[in-house]
């Protein structure tokens, strides 16, 4: 073997070595000698009396089996904002991802900067309006923040602002600055693999109006197979690679973060999403990884083109691009997961149909409605304040409720959510509410101009121009409160 060929062989060997799928949960990064703190051994005696259920959960956990005790996770330095004295030890009640990351370093690194970890910080600008106009601050804790997370505030007297805690939201802003909450998916204090791999770990947030994935998954073929073969899912296995350790059905974890074939598992759960499906307009998006450790989602056509490029961030600072995963690359990874069970063509056809339906939503409803709304704001026919005018609520329902449901259904295969609760609801909203309300608000002339520009000239609405007579849908005059479909 010539030296050249040898080095090639080594390279190939190395490539396969690095590509070996993750067959086990990531090894913890802390040496065994660093856990099982002496000071944490006495906690249990009292807690099995004072909070027996919680203690039993821990006693049946992998943590207990590996001698990880209360203080290992709850230890705090006295400088930490939420540090308290408890039975002679300095602890914090809140165990942040940073705390978990003392041992689970890899997961912490993947999770920080993920879309999940920004679930709270990314909606702070939108939340106050909804919360204050439709509820109050404590509603916020019991609704939005339950999934998105709260910004935990520690008072000067060491107590925690009860409007910000207790909270397990996945984008929680912790007193130590880290983002997220591991217990959002890994229910404390058992931290069971079996529990976290089941769809319920995700669907306790991903259900209902704004993220109807629970029903969509349950009504899909994947959900049907999961229900039928739940006992064969090998859920408590140490290794959980699709196509190796289980085969019966995919759960949320399988496609969005799990190991499959050569694809490694990742705690950056949004990583394989090539579309953003929860905004007024869906865009194919690139994941841009920055040198400061942050990750941002950027529409493909606005994404930086090469590594090393400096980009300006929303907060005005700049950062260098470390890596870019284009939507195409992300789709490829997702598609590879599909191929553990489906043929390449099968997966491709599904994604083609899905993409076409998302584009249909964009072009037919999302974009025209968004452009009309923008014009109404520009013409001062609407006040800048959100949710104080009927059409604002209608537009919100259009993209946030019906639009999201339709797009998610297209992605995951629930026919009823795609049709009746999806595009049919979008249509009845757009033709039956949004456009009539536009006429009421803007008056016949202005409305006619906007409708011609954004609807009648849009190929998707051609049927509208071929009516024998003027549609009753748009027959409402300004000042007339009555309209009917």
């Amino acid at each position: 073997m010539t030296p050249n060929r040898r080095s090639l062989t080594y390279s190939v060997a190395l490539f396969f070595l690095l590509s070996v799928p993750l067959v086990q949960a990531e090894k913890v990064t802390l040496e065994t000698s660093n856990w099982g703190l002496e000071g944490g051994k006495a906690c249990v005696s009292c807690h099995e009396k004072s909070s027996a259920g919680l203690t039993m959960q821990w006693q049946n956990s992998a943590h207990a089996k590996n001698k990880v005790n209360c203080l290992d996770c709850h230890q705090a330095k006295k400088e930490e904002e939420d540090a308290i004295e408890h039975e002679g030890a300095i602890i914090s009640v809140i165990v942040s991802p940073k705390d978990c990351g003392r041992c689970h370093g890899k997961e912490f690194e993947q999770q920080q900067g993920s879309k999940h970890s920004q679930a709270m910080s990314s909606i702070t600008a939108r939340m106050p309006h909804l919360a204050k106009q439709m509820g109050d601050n404590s509603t916020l804790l019991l609704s939005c923040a339950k999934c998105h997370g709260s910004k935990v505030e520690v008072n000067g007297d060491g107590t925690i602002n009860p409007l910000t805690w207790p909270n397990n939201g996945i984008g929680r802003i912790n007193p130590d600055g880290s983002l997220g909450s591991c217990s959002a998916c890994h229910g404390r204090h058992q931290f069971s693999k079996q529990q976290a791999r089941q769809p319920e770990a995700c669907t306790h947030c991903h259900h209902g109006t704004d993220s109807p994935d629970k029903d969509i998954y349950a009504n899909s073929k994947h959900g049907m197979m999961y229900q039928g073969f739940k006992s064969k899912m090998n859920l408590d296995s140490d290794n959980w690679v699709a196509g190796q350790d289980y085969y019966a059905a995919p759960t949320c974890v399988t496609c969005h973060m799990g190991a499959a074939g050569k694809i490694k598992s990742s705690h950056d759960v949004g990583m394989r999403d090539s579309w953003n499906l929860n905004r007024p307009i869906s865009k194919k998006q690139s994941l841009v990884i920055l040198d400061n450790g942050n990750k941002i989602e950027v529409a493909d056509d606005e994404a930086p083109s090469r590594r090393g490029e400096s980009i300006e961030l929303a907060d005005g600072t700049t950062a260098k691009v470390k890596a870019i995963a284009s939507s195409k690359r992300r789709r490829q990874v997702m598609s590879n997961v599909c191929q553990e069970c489906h043929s390449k063509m099968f997966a491709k056809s599904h994604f083609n149909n899905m993409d076409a339906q998302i584009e249909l939503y964009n072009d037919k409803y999302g974009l025209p409605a968004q452009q009309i709304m923008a014009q109404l704001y520009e013409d001062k026919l609407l006040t800048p304040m959100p949710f104080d005018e009927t059409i604002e609520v209608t537009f919100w329902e259009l993209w946030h409720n019906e639009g999201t449901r339709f797009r998610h259904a297209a992605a995951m295969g629930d026919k009823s959510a795609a049709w009746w609760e999806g595009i049919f609801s979008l249509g009845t909203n757009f033709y039956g509410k949004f456009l009539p309300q536009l006429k009421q608000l803007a008056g016949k002339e202005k409305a006619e101009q906007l409708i011609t520009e954004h609807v009648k000239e849009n190929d998707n609405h051609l049927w509208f121009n071929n009516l024998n007579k003027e549609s009753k849908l748009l027959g409402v005059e300004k000042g007339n409160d009555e309209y009917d479909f």
Partner: protein
Amino acid sequence: MISKWLPDFITRHVLFALIIGSIVGMGFVLFLIEFDHFTSSEEFCTTCHSMEIVAEPYRQSVHYNPSSGVRASCGDCHVSEGVLSATWDHFLGTKDLIKQLFGPNYDDPVVNALHLPEAAFAARQWFKNKDSATCKRCHVKEAINGDRANTLKIHQDDAKNKTCIECHYNLVHRKVPDEKVFKRDKWNQMIEKEFSLKAGDAEAILNK
């Protein structure tokens, strides 16, 4: 007649002196008991406005309003039992009186709140040094049944070598973190926000 029963040095004068001395002595002890009793009352303590400020949260606490009606007064917790110890505690307490008269203006709610943590740390230390003696006037560890399943067992097994104050603090007065984790800057910020002061005002008041 007297000399027949008593030693020679007990003369009539000595006898009178003893009788009068005893009466005065008893009177003095009775006075001390009454004095300690009166100066341990909420009524007496709150004659200083600064104490009125710390009494407010106390009046919201379970020690003031237990369902049983057994109300603990200031002295029940903060003054030792027994006339000698009680008198000694009151004697030491004059230090607070001197500070009240010549020290910072504790009657000002801001000054009061800024100095509260040190007062709380000192009080907790006092309880600890006394092995929570004043708590035990009413509470008997062996009889703490509680409402929940294992309260008694926790107190018997796990709190065996602990004294009440080690676990039970922040029960009555405004909450102050334990000294080990106390952060002066955070405390100052909280008080500044509470009284709508500028950043740095608290520091200036403390240094005045």
